[in-house]
């Protein structure tokens, strides 16, 4: 057994994880005058131009351009990969990836263990939740209610939107403007605070969005009640990527989180780098890497935090948090971490970080494996349970004319109509995202088209060129993301039989889709079919029983993938018996320990979780700051 060396310095706050949440927490806490240490298991990807550039080259050279493909996957620090996912058969778990999959369905999502976290490969979608999403139990008898409502988090949404730099226009984003028949009468009122607007104007809609908008106004029956019929509408999606900064209409500025803000200043890439905050220039590779960092990533916020008070913030990368240690009082006394010098070599030094307050911000799965390994937060029995994702189903086809795919951000618009409605008492809400990259996600286009035309259709020369133009220009795809309910059996556990080469526990995952989500997917498929029929799109969708994510509902088969939205494993709540933390993310069991991130969300709703997770980080940061100031035990 190695001896553990204590770090010299004791910090006000020790944060595990340098992703979305860790970055916002660090920036807020340093701004409030506290000292912060961040432990990050991965390496620093943004230190120099060369580092980041080398990831871009790795992307070019990757045969399968998966979300994690540009970034190193170290045997010492594995990240889950979408290539590892296979169908789970029988009782033997599938262990070929980092996750140990117990099934019955494979959990298809991934994340990135690196400085900046999964923000390095997110798409940039920055949606707020709907008011109904906080009241799933009282409105629909499904899932649980949150311990607070939409209005309680609204000002933190504003802060998060201005930190990420979200491009959208408020008047286009109210539930009514999106064409949603909300389940509550007053949900539209005050969705945005008076005078509020996003820091940058909307990202322009793609030509494909315009093509789909030709079906706007088409009625779709969604519930039993004819009153529930909605009128289709293509609406633009708020995105965390640079467009044109908004000039405030009012000389006093725009109210953001109870402070007035003036014109937003877009940030460029981190490190000494040539790109100093340009608008998105349409590289069409947001997932997995934005070459110029016009898309937000958490390294930008971390950079800000360092500049606010240099000596207040320290980051240690290549430091794998291994155990949360408790004093007899039940308070956390330190975090033991493994500091490795060489990427990929499982040799490390054992060290102990010390602080007054401790925050786990390593993501919904890593937070849980660390907490389970440390045998903490056990009272509720909820730790690791209620794992949720957005089961992601694709429908694709050929448009009757060229629509210009493979240009611009991955998606610029969606059908948001089905994000709320009275149908949610039996069918999951969902959002239909319009893809801008043809069949890329669905079939591996355009490379697979080349292979098929050459190898099977025996084309060459001009005929091959013509066929490629003809077919690929017509490729359209809709991605359905459906909500999941919290289920205690969808969970992350650990098992001493499964460890990494560094001796850390690998996540063991049990996962399934319930009928509520399956009904949502089936309904969405029918809607897509109707849209295709209306627009003359020839349906090419194929779901194969041999697909890893194949499932059936009502006698029909579908295939789903993960959306990378890992939610729910250490949820907030009202009582130590129904939740892991309280509503400001302090653990019920350990007075100076906090768990922050998408794992805090009690339900997933239909919004990509990043914006909500970021807003919640503001909520937690205020409480943590108070706790540091008060000091000592309760």
């Amino acid at each position, binding site marked *: 057994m190695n001896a553990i060396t204590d770090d010299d310095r004791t910090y006000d706050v020790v944060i595990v994880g340098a992703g979305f949440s860790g970055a916002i927490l660090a920036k807020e806490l340093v701004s409030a005058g506290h000292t912060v240490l961040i432990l990050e298991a991965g390496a620093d990807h943004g230190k120099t131009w060369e580092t980041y550039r080398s990831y871009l080259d790795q992307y070019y050279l990757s045969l399968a351009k998966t979300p994690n493909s540009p970034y190193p996957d170290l045997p010492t620090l594995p990240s889950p990969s979408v290539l590892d996912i296979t169908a789970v058969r029988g009782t033997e778990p599938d262990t070929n990836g980092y996750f140990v999959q117990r099934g019955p369905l494979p959990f298809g999502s991934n994340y990135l263990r690196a400085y900046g976290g999964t923000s390095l490969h997110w798409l940039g979608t920055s949606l707020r939740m709907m008011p109904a999403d906080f009241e799933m139990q009282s409105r629909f008898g499904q899932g649980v209610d949150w311990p607070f409502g939409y209005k309680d988090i609204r000002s933190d949404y504003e802060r998060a939107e201005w930190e990420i730099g979200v491009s959208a226009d408020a008047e286009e984003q109210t539930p009514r403007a999106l064409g949603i028949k909300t389940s509550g009468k007053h949900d539209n009122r005050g969705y945005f605070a008076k005078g509020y607007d996003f820091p940058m104007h909307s990202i*322009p809609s*793609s030509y494909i969005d315009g093509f789909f908008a030709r079906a706007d106004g088409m009625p779709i029956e969604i519930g039993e009640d004819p009153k529930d019929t909605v009128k289709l509408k293509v609406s633009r999606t708020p995105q965390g990527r640079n467009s044109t900064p908004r000039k405030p209409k009012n000389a006093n500025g725009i109210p953001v989180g109870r402070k007035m803000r003036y014109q937003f200043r877009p940030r460029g890439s981190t490190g000494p780098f040539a790109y100093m905050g*340009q608008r998105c220039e349409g590289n069409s590779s947001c997932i997995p890497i934005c070459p110029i960092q016009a898309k937000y990533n958490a390294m930008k916020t971390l950079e800000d935090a360092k500049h606010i008070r240099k000596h207040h913030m320290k980051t240690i990368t290549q430091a794998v948090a291994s155990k949360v240690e408790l004093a007899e009082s039940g308070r956390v006394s330190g975090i033991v971490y493994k500091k490795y010098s060489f990427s990929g070599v499982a040799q490390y030094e054992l060290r102990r970080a010390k602080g007054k307050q401790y925050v786990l911000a390593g993501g919904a799965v890593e937070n849980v494996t660390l907490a389970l390994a440390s045998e903490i937060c056990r009272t509720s029995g909820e730790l690791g349970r209620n794992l949720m994702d957005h089961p992601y189903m694709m429908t694709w086809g050929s448009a009757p004319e060229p629509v210009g795919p493979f240009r611009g951000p991955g998606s610029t618009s969606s059908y948001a109509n089905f994000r709320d409605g009275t149908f949610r008492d039996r069918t999951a809400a969902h959002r239909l995202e319009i893809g801008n990259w043809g069949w890329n996600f669905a079939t591996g286009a*355009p*490379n697979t088209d080349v*292979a098929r035309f050459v190898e099977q259709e025996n084309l060459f*020369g001009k005929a091959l*060129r013509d066929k490629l133009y003809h077919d690929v220009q017509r490729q359209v795809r809709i991605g359905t993301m459906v909500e999941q309910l919290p289920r205690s059996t969808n969970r992350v556990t650990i098992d001493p039989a499964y460890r990494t080469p560094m001796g850390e526990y690998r996540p063991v995952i049990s996962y399934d889709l319930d009928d509520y989500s399956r009904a949502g997917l089936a309904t969405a498929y029918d809607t897509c079919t109707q849209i295709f029929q209306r627009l003359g799109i020839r349906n090419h969708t194929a779901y194969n029983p041999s697909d890893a994510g194949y499932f059936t509902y009502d006698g029909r088969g579908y295939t789903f993938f993960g959306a990378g939205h890992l939610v729910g494993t250490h949820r907030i709540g009202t009582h130590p018996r129904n939740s892991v933390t309280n509503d400001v993310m302090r653990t019920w069991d350990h007075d100076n320990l906090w768990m922050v991130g998408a794992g805090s969300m009690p339900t997933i709703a239909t919004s990509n979780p990043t914006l909500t997770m970021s807003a919640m980080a503001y909520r937690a940061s205020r409480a943590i700051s108070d706790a540091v100031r008060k000091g000592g035990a309760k």
Partner: protein
Amino acid sequence: MSQHDNSPAHQAFLTVSAALTGYNSAELQGTGCTGEYWHQFRQVLPEEILNRFLSHAQSLGQGDDDQIIRQTYLSDRCLGPIARSLIQLWYTGQWVPLSQEWRESYGASRFDVVKIISTRSYKEGLVWDAIGAHPMGAKQQGFGAWALEPPRKREAGQ
């Protein structure tokens, strides 16, 4: 990698490549990848087969290229698979290995493995031009370009 390889073999390689891809020799050289691809091609093919492959170049460009390509290349047990790998190399920058059957009949090379030849070859894949787009992650078209009408089809040499 030689930038100005005027050897008859290299010229023949370009002539056959042009007939197979539907892009003219100047367009192919414009990718800056001819040297790398010629190198890869020579590393994979036994010399005698390479010579056979290139020997038909002189009959191209005199009228009925389509028939020559179908007859002497695509439907030939030995040259067909090579031609199909070469088309895909130009279009995607990626070498598609020959089949096990082909290797057993004509000879195996340790360079005959699946790979993207270089970062440049990824970006210069002809497929992106053919579909009227740009390589994902490179040669970006500028803010808002995705809102414009789809580009028209471009013919060879246009």
